[in-house]
């Protein structure tokens, strides 16, 4: 248990420090927070001075002259104003600190996340990952102000108040204030516990009824299509009556919680007033001292009271930072140095197996992709073809076996240098928010002229469409949603035609295109890949037939390889696949 606790703390601080804390702002905030604390303490100490020491107001004026009274008022005024202004400044500086720390943590996290290994990225549900990057960073940073600025200020107030009370020279007062420390924590926790339990019960019920209301709202189309509007108005009303009941319970619970809060605070108040009053009645302290004591004790109690919610915030912040760290503190792709000189040659798979969870995606496959040759991969969906491409691109590592490029294990190669030798066009080629020009240049190392870009678009049979939409500067929208599926695919092909790599990987690149476009585009691709090393996954028999070598996959195993002529006579599965496609 202790190990875990220290781990969580270590974790939290590591995250903060790696993200560079804004020291200047923190010091500023701390200074003003301390100003607030000290101003408050001295105000409290001096407030008693404005009332006379003795009993009889008219006679015993404690010998204070008007000048002295004026001086005290001026002092109190200055201290009071200082405390309030300092508070306002602290609020502003806190906001700035939180924003800056949040930014720094986000920057740190983002740089890590996009260099994680593919397997690690896929382990996390992307919605959760986004929450880590946007929410958990904010939660981790919110606490920084509490910890580094406000905590010290609170401690100063609590301790300072007790020190100043001690200066009055009455031990009872000191002890009763020290006693307040555990008392207030106990009272806070008790009140907190009661209110939390009550609120929890109500919130659960509320969530349940809300879920049923949400169900109706989600199903409105169905309600209309079955013409059940009248029925559902009735049912909805019954549901809203239930909601009404729960809301009333919530209102009652809220008022009750307030009651609990209010009453429990009588106890600390009694501890302030009763002992001190008894001493004052006996003449042990003057009313002036009583007034100062009261003020100091109140300030101390407020600081103690504010401490409890801080612990809750702390837990949240630690939770957030732990979740964040678990994602980003794992191995990155380019952490280890790799060979940057890529030897071009054959790609050889030797006894390669890889599993995704329990599913064996590839089972002991071996084959050679000859340099300069064209290889087609066929098989039913899920048979392992895409996995081969994923392994070639070093998205995953095989569980056993080796993959070599030019006789060197690809594991030795540096990721970036290695991938720059490949052009990879996946089936659902995405396009990111931006212009058509940006989408075309996405994989390029050097920019192309507009003529080159338009030429590529023409060869991909999409130039007319793009020009109709607005040309190279047309913005394709989030995930390319302003283009149809076919247009997006052709855009991907145009991008491919602009590349110049030795190795080309193509995965069903004409699936969304109509017959006419498929024919034209396939011809272009053939021309483009002349002399390059091509690996192609396709259902289009014309493409497959012309390959130098065909690999037939079935449930993760390589069941046959050869030319079209060879396979047609020797492999049953291949025969079936060909027949289906015809």
């Amino acid at each position, binding site marked *: 248990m202790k190990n875990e606790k220290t781990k969580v703390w270590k974790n939290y601080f590591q995250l903060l420090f790696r993200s560079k804390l804004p020291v200047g702002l923190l010091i500023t905030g701390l200074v003003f927070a301390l100003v607030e604390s000290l101003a408050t303490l001295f105000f409290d100490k001096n407030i008693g001075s*404005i*009332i006379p020491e003795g009993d009889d107001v008219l006679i015993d*004026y404690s010998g204070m002259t*008007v000048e002295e009274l*004026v001086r005290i008022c001026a002092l109190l*005024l200055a201290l009071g*104003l200082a405390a309030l*202004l300092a508070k*306002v400044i602290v609020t*502003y500086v*806190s*906001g700035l600190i*939180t*924003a*800056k720390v949040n*930014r720094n943590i986000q920057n740190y996290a*983002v*740089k890590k996340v*996009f260099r994680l290994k593919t397997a690690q*990225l896929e382990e996390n549900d992307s*919605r959760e*990952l*986004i929450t880590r*990057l946007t929410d958990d960073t904010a939660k981790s940073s919110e606490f920084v102000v509490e910890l580094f600025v406000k905590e010290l200020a609170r401690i100063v107030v609590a301790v300072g108040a007790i020190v100043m009370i001690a200066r009055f020279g009455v031990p009872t007062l000191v002890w009763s204030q020290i006693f307040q420390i555990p008392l207030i924590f106990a009272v806070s926790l008790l009140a907190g516990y009661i209110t939390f339990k009550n609120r929890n019960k109500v919130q659960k019920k509320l969530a349940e009824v809300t879920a*049923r*209301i*949400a169900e109706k709202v989600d*199903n*409105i189309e169905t309600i209309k*299509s*079955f013409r059940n*509007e009248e029925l559902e*108005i009735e049912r*909805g009303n019954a549901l809203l*009556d239930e*909601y009404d009941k729960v*809301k009333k319970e919530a209102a*009652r619970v809220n008022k009750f919680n307030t*009651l609990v809060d209010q009453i429990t605070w*009588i106890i600390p108040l*009694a501890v302030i007033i009763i002992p001190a*009053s008894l001493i004052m*009645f006996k003449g042990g302290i003057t*009313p002036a001292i009583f*007034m100062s004591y009261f003020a100091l004790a109140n300030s101390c109690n407020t600081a103690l009271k504010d401490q409890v919610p801080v612990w809750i915030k702390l837990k949240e912040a630690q939770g957030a930072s732990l979740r964040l760290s678990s994602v980003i503190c794992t191995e990155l792709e380019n952490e280890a140095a790799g060979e940057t000189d890529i030897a071009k040659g054959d790609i050889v798979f030797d006894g390669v197996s890889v599993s995704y969870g329990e599913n064996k995606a590839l089972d002991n496959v071996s084959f050679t992709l000859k340099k300069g040759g064209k290889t087609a991969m066929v098989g*039913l969906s899920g048979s392992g073809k895409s996995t081969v491409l994923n392994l070639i691109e070093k998205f995953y590592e095989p569980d056993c076996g080796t993959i070599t490029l030019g006789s060197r294990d690809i594991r030795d190669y540096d*990721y970036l240098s290695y*991938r720059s030798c*490949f052009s990879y066009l996946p089936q659902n080629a*995405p396009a990111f928010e931006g212009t058509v020009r940006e989408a075309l240049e*996405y994989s390029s190392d050097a920019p192309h002229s507009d003529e080159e870009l338009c030429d590529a678009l023409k060869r991909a049979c999409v130039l007319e469409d793009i020009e109709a939409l607005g040309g190279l500067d047309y913005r394709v929208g*989030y995930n390319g*949603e*302003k283009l149809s*599926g076919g247009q997006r695919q052709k855009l991907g092909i145009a991008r491919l035609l602009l590349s110049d790599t030795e190795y080309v990987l193509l995965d069903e690149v004409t*699936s969304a295109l*109509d*017959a006419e476009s*498929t024919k034209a585009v396939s011809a272009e691709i053939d021309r483009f890949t002349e002399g390059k090393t091509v690996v192609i996954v396709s259902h289009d028999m014309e493409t497959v037939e012309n390959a130098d070598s065909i690999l037939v996959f079935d449930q993760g195993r390589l069941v046959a390889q050869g030319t079209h002529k060879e396979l047609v006579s020797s492999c049953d599965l291949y025969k079936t696949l060909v027949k289906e*496609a015809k």
Partner: protein
Amino acid sequence: MKKQSLFNDSSVNEIKTKNSLRSLYKGVKIPWGGILLGLIVSMLAMLLLATQAENVSLMQTGQHKDLNPFFAYTLLYIIDCAVFYLSVIGDKALVTLNTRVRKKMWAKILKISARDLEKENPASLLSRITTDSEYASMPFTILTTVFSVVTFLLGLAGELKKMDLSAYGPIVGIAVLLALIVAIISVRMVFVVSTAKQSKIANLTKYYSEQLGSTKFIKASRGEERTVDKALGLIEERYGAERNYAVYQLVNALSASILQLALFGATFAAAIVLLKSGALRDLTGTARFYSNFSLICGGLMNIVVLPQVIAETIGGTKKISYVNSMESENLEEGEEFAKSDIAFKGVSFLYDDKRTIDNADMTFEAGKITALVGPNGSGKSTVVKLFSRLYKAESGDILAGDRPASDISLKSWRENFSVVSQNASLFSGTVKDNILYGAKTEVSEDELLQAIEVAGLSELVSEKGLDYEIGVKGGKLSGGEQQRVAIARALIADKDYLILDEATANLDTKTEAEVIGKLLETVKGKTVIVIAHTMDVVEHADNIIVLRDGKVEAAGPREQIVSGNSFMKAMED
């Protein structure tokens, strides 16, 4: 598909506040009794609190001679807490008011056209009903607050009389005014800075969502650095917005502090002036005033936060009024539907700039089963939505027989069409309730059993029974079971036109084949459109329409299409 909310702020803001409040409460019985009772109790509690002012200031300044003030204070404080608790009567009355407003809104929502509802996403509709309705009672809460504060100040009148208010009065007045002005400024600010902050976060989230959805593509294109750079830029924008938000927090803190600042000034600066002029020789009164001042501050703060509360209330009530003012569907207007072919003639549909259907010509023959095939994004779901008259064609016509579909009344149309989609759209209740959901007449035991059998539900029914509660949205059933219930429901509803829009997507291929097979046999004679991905399903169709990239690539009888079309060749078994 991008959804643009109907409730963009400009149209909502066009509604005048006066009108929105009037329309908000129109037809809603306001529970005056409870509200007034709650108000009176609140005012009483405040009065009791105010009477304690004397004891409090006595004790704080050490002027008490015995502990009686403390005990009196404690006793009255506890009584006051109890009275305050009783004001829950008012709270409950306000809950009743909100419930009545909700019911009115719910009835309205069920009448709004499906098209307008589609534009509004379900999550925000839900919040109209649950959270926004809370604003209906806010005007009364605000009134209660104002009355309570005034009562409180009047209660303090006794104490206040003891001080020379001619000195303090103007300062307090100016202070309240200043605080209110700053509060109003801060209210203006909060809307702008909050929206800006939210939108920057939304941009960031959207960007991450896009990029994280294509990490392999990014890596293959060596685009990691570009992604990170763009993200850093968006993070910087968020930072800018959060810095501005900190300014708002400063202004907000200022409005709270001005009151206290000014009252400090009132106490001590005024004291200095009075001391120097000789009008004051003793500061006990000042001390008492100072100790009352936190009470007064507390009371006045409720007034200072009012601008914020009022602004939020206006915003919230406008949203409710907007829903109430939306156009209701006209179900009755139009002619009766008659069984006929449904033809699309040169139909095009645009969603944003994207042409999802491009000049399509196709006919769905009455009484026949038509399979609609094509790759993802080829426009099949748009066709379904055009069919259910959820969408309107951009150009071209949709004809039912020789009449435009729009001539036919929605009521009649819905009487004849049913859609089973991938999202089963079930309700909490029993299996039986859901299957019979669309039945308008008595359903015999035999008919029910037949529907169960055809939909492949026999196993589930024998295991768990017809009275099995399926949970919210049918959550206690698996995806496949939910779809089967939806199919059974459609069978019982027994409409002449049936659209199966990926209706068996959650079933494994073997079960899908079985269910589709039985289903299509049972509905022979009806006009069926089935979106198909596998040859098994296509086998049962009379006609096939092949869509690619929004265009009709091929259409005709099954035998003719299957042999000649390349997409069909590519379909997996």
